[in-house]
């Protein structure tokens, strides 16, 4: 058996409400609240970035899998659209911070919002093949959204880390599948600060085509149907898309809701579906199945079928759960404070 042995999520303390962004730009907040099912989003503090968020998430994962010696972790993969450096790995800083020994493999991954699930796939594959005892897959972002752009209402910050191993597995990986085509729905050119996107083109031919195809194939490979799952986690660029995808596939709202953190978190890009999975593991019971399908623009999806084990419950309370972090006394920002925090004010 191989799969997740520890997980952790990290979300900044700061938030901005949809109303506050809409007020700034003279927009109607209701169109974002109802249309995109977003209420507020997390904002990284000026001292937070993909590296610091990854460290906190990884430390929480190790707090849960407290028996793991960080020296035995053979790889760490961090997927993000906001690696702090254009050239210099995030993984080495995170590895040092969590006490890994120098004998490890690392790569900073990028594939828009599915970079995190790519890291999970690589980490699990290395562990499953027997090449390594433990490996980390992390998705984290301090997402960028240009001022006044629709993305500004959703682009948020957070991440989740998953430690994979072969013993004391809490969620076994039953099946995986990856699906990708050359579909330019969203991109960011070198030296550009904010991403560009294809507007409504990001929907049907991009998000829905890839995510639904991947979900159907991975379920087929596993010989399962929606009713075989207790939970489903789909990439969450807003509140509406994952719900609609679930409905098309035949999932009920109740299966999606536990991991559907986007209305109060926003879109954490590479962190989005991994954080949905983390929130689900926080509350799942033994013997339950979880379908997770990410989506990364450009475009592709990674699908995972997990089944939880009896090892899970004992670890749930050993580190802060995602929803508890979200509820823990957030600090609300004005648009001005938010703009300063995000470097949107040039000095």
């Amino acid at each position, binding site marked *: 058996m191989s799969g997740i042995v520890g997980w952790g999520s990290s979300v900044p*303390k700061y938030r901005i409400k949809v109303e506050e962004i809409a007020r700034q730009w003279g927009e109607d907040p209701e169109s974002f609240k109802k249309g995109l099912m977003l209420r507020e989003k997390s904002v990284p503090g*000026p001292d937070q970035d993909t590296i*610091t968020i990854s460290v906190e998430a990884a*430390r929480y994962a190790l707090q849960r899998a407290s028996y793991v010696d960080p020296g035995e972790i053979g790889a760490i993969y961090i997927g993000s659209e906001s690696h*702090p450096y254009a050239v210099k790995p995030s993984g080495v800083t995170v590895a*040092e*911070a969590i006490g890994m020994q120098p004998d490890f493999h690392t790569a900073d991954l990028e594939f828009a919002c599915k970079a995190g699930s790519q890291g999970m796939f690589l980490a699990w594959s290395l562990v499953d093949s027997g090449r390594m005892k433990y490996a980390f897959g992390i998705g984290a972002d301090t997402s960028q959204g240009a001022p006044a752009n629709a993305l500004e209402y959703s682009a948020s910050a957070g991440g989740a880390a998953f430690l994979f191993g072969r013993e004391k597995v809490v969620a076994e990986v039953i099946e995986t599948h990856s699906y990708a085509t050359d579909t330019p729905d969203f991109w960011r050119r070198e030296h550009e600060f904010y991403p560009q996107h294809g507007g409504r083109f990001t929907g049907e031919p991009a998000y829905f085509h890839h995510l639904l195809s991947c979900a159907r194939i991975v379920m087929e490979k596993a010989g399962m149907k929606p009713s075989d799952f207790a939970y489903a986690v789909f990439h969450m660029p807003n509140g509406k898309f994952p719900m609609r995808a679930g409905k098309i596939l035949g999932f009920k709202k109740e299966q999606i809701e536990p991991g559907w953190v986007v209305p109060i978190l926003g879109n954490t890009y590479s962190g989005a579906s991994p954080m949905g999975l983390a929130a689900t593991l926080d509350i799942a019971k033994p013997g339950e199945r979880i379908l997770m399908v990410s989506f990364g623009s450009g475009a592709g999806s990674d699908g995972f079928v997990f089944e939880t084990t009896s090892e899970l419950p004992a670890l749930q309370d050993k580190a802060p759960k995602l929803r508890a972090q979200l509820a823990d006394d957030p600090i609300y920002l004005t648009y001005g404070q938010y703009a300063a925090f995000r470097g949107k004010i040039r000095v």
Partner: protein
Amino acid sequence: MTVARIWRERGRRYRLEAARCKGCGKVFFPGRLVCDKCGSREFEEIRLSDKGKILTYTVIRVPPPAHTYETPYAVAIVELEGGGRITAMVADCDPEKLEIGQNVRVVFRKISQDGEKGIKFYGYKVVPA
């Protein structure tokens, strides 16, 4: 050179690596070659706890250049469980609501950077626990 200066401290800044004197048990952060209390030169490597209490604090309103756009921000002297004291910025808090004796937790954060083109400096801060 900034790079080497920052690099050599990473164990201390990232993992709170410290030393405990084998002669008298005094905890040093950062570690030293000789104990100022008993003169011993034998130390055991330890890691400081990530939990502690505020001994005293202030709110910086006139910052050095590295923190110009973060003011006002709080800084505290924290006594960590099991020994060792650090001076650290207090993040994610309302500086007006801090108190001496308050419990805090050590977190990993970006402290500052070498301008727009240089390296980023990571290290420890504390947050209310």
